[in-house]
């Protein structure tokens, strides 16, 4: 042990700093290098897992992905089974979810970051938000299942003859004719909004926090009100950040199945919400859109779950599930690419 001696260090000791001159250090450096390689290995293993995952899915789908897969409904025969209902279901679900969660989420974030004072109520809201973000999505499903359908029925009875709200007569007519199902697009979207709201709010808060205070001060100094400042300065400046966060949350809603399973969406669907099966129909019969929120539906991840669980000795539904996964991943990739483009463009335009 040349290293340790507690004594006084008088007398010249000749030392060599040349690498490898001390066997003990050589050993320590070797350990250090092994450790680095171990860390590198596990890090790159994630890349390997990703590659294996994608390859195994492609291999399982084995050419099952085709135009007819995208344009057919569910079928008992795996060779004729398609994902059309899930595609439309996911589309409407995500559209409504975004419609609910973006205004509410961004609004909450604006209130919490720009308006709220540090009172006990605000502290409760903040602590609560971080805890809500950790609640398993299936628990939101229970809430949707138990609370939203009765809520809808209550709303419907509010609009029917007995408790007529005449101002909203138009809605009354619309709603009277509709049954309210478990697992309608509207209930699904309400549930899914609750699932993603905490992440939307937290991401928006972070984006708002990144806007320098000088912008607010400058705007207020020019005589703008608090809200004018937010609307004209702060929100536009934080928009890229908010958009990125929102898009990532939306992509979570696209892949999430557990809360939908809970509220009882269809696992086997041979119809699309509102009977709209093609974009052309959307143009020719736009009135049907009004029926969409109240219709039953299925979503891509739910269908994939169902196909994966099909008892199937010849693995023919496996191929269907794999093809469904490829479609789902392609949709997610598109959405995430949008987020990346927003981030990239914002990075070029905005520099504080």
């Amino acid at each position: 042990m040349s290293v340790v001696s507690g004594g006084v260090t008088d007398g010249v000791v000749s030392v060599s700093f040349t690498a490898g001159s001390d066997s003990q250090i050589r050993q320590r450096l070797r350990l250090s290098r092994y450790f680095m390689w171990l860390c590198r290995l596990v890090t790159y293993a994630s890349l390997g897992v990703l590659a294996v995952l994608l390859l195994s899915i492609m291999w399982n789908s084995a050419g099952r992905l085709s135009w007819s897969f995208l344009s057919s409904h569910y079928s008992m025969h795996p060779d004729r089974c398609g994902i059309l209902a899930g595609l439309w279901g996911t589309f409407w679900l995500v559209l409504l979810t975004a419609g609910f969660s973006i205004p509410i989420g961004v609004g909450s974030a604006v209130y919490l970051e720009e308006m709220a004072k540090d009172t006990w109520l605000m502290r409760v809201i903040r602590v609560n938000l971080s805890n809500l973000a950790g609640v398993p999505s299936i628990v939101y499903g229970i809430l949707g299942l138990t609370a939203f359908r009765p809520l809808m029925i209550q709303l419907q009875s509010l609009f029917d003859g007995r408790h007529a709200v005449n101002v909203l007569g138009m809605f009354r007519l619309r709603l009277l004719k509709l049954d309210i199902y478990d697992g309608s697009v509207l209930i699904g979207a309400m549930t899914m909004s609750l699932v993603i709201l905490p992440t939307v709010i937290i991401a928006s808060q972070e984006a708002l926090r990144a806007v320098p205070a000088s912008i607010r001060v400058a705007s207020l100094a020019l005589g703008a009100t608090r809200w004018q400042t937010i609307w004209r300065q702060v929100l536009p400046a934080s928009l890229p950040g908010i958009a990125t966060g929102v898009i990532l949350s939306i992509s979570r809603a696209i892949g999430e199945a557990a809360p939908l399973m809970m509220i009882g969406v269809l696992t086997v669907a041979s119809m699309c919400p509102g009977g709209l099966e093609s974009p052309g129909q959307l143009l020719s019969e736009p009135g049907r859109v009004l029926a969409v929120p109240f219709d039953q539906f299925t979503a891509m991840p739910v269908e994939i779950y169902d196909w994966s669980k099909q008892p199937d000795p010849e693995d023919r539904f496996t191929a269907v599930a794999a093809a469904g996964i490829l479609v789902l991943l392609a949709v997610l990739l598109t959405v995430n690419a949008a987020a990346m483009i927003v981030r990239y463009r914002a990075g070029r335009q905005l520099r504080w």
Partner: protein
Amino acid sequence: MYSGLEVDQQWSASCQLLLVRLGFGLSFVESVLMPTWASQRIHRRHETLIRWVLFVCAALSVLTTAAIIYVLLSNAVYAPGEKTAFFERVSLWQFLTSGRWKPTDGAGAHFGIWPLLTGTLQVALIASLVSIPAGLGAAVYMSEYAQPREREFLKPVLEILAGIPSVVYGFFALKFITPWVLKPLFGLLGLEISIFNSLSAGIVVGIMVTPLIASLSEDVIRAVPRSLREAAYALGSTRFDVSARVVVPAALSGILASFLLAFSRAVGETMAVAIAAGGNPLLTLNPLRGSQTMTGFMVHASAGDSAADSISRMSMYAVGITLFVMTLTINLLSGWIMRRYREVYQ
């Protein structure tokens, strides 16, 4: 410009006309409930209205929590009205001590949470065994070793891994990991593995939460001051000494918090587990056999067509409240540890 101003004034005036009563009401409530951002009073009525609307948005999250708790309690513990809650029909004693879970209506039903609990914990533990070394290794690598460019490449890979839907992982476990990895592996050892098994479910859940551990731990490792690293280097440390003896111990509580958060995520993970672990609530510790987790049971029960107030259906709420309390406790603990960690370095 001029006409625009006029319109603005008109709009503002009409807003005042429409909302004057409402506004007075709101500003009164507001002065009690919500202190204004600046201490001055906001005079414009529509600003007050906007504030109020945004406040309602923000308060919605509290309402959500309250609604979740109410729904769980009113169905599991005590139901107001003519309904009877789960624990009004099944004793808490049976729920906590019985080792059988057979949630059928009528005779022969058993409601002991243990099979679901062991199934859940088994999957979460296997997931931790996978994700803790992998996540921590990746965090150390990215914060201590990786070049900035390498990091820019690795981070998105982990984000992609985190962004892949749960059902996809379930499929991967059931159709790839079990038949192509585990079956041959345990075949060599002469062990039988079921098609549905906790091991494959645990492995994929571990893969799913690895990015979470990696990114949270990397954040806390980066929060360790540079001065501490330099001091360690100046004492003749190798990189391993600095990482393993100074940086990781210094960040340990934050890293622990990330482990806890990942564990709670694994407990609440649903679809991958429902696909890969199967639906048979067995009280077993053998990861090569199938089991049912709490989340798996809930998916299963909600898909059933028994009546809404049947005991089999109500059992879902009892399991739900157990899951909620478990994850909430772990999350709160994790948050508390993380806050204490941040106090040390900020």
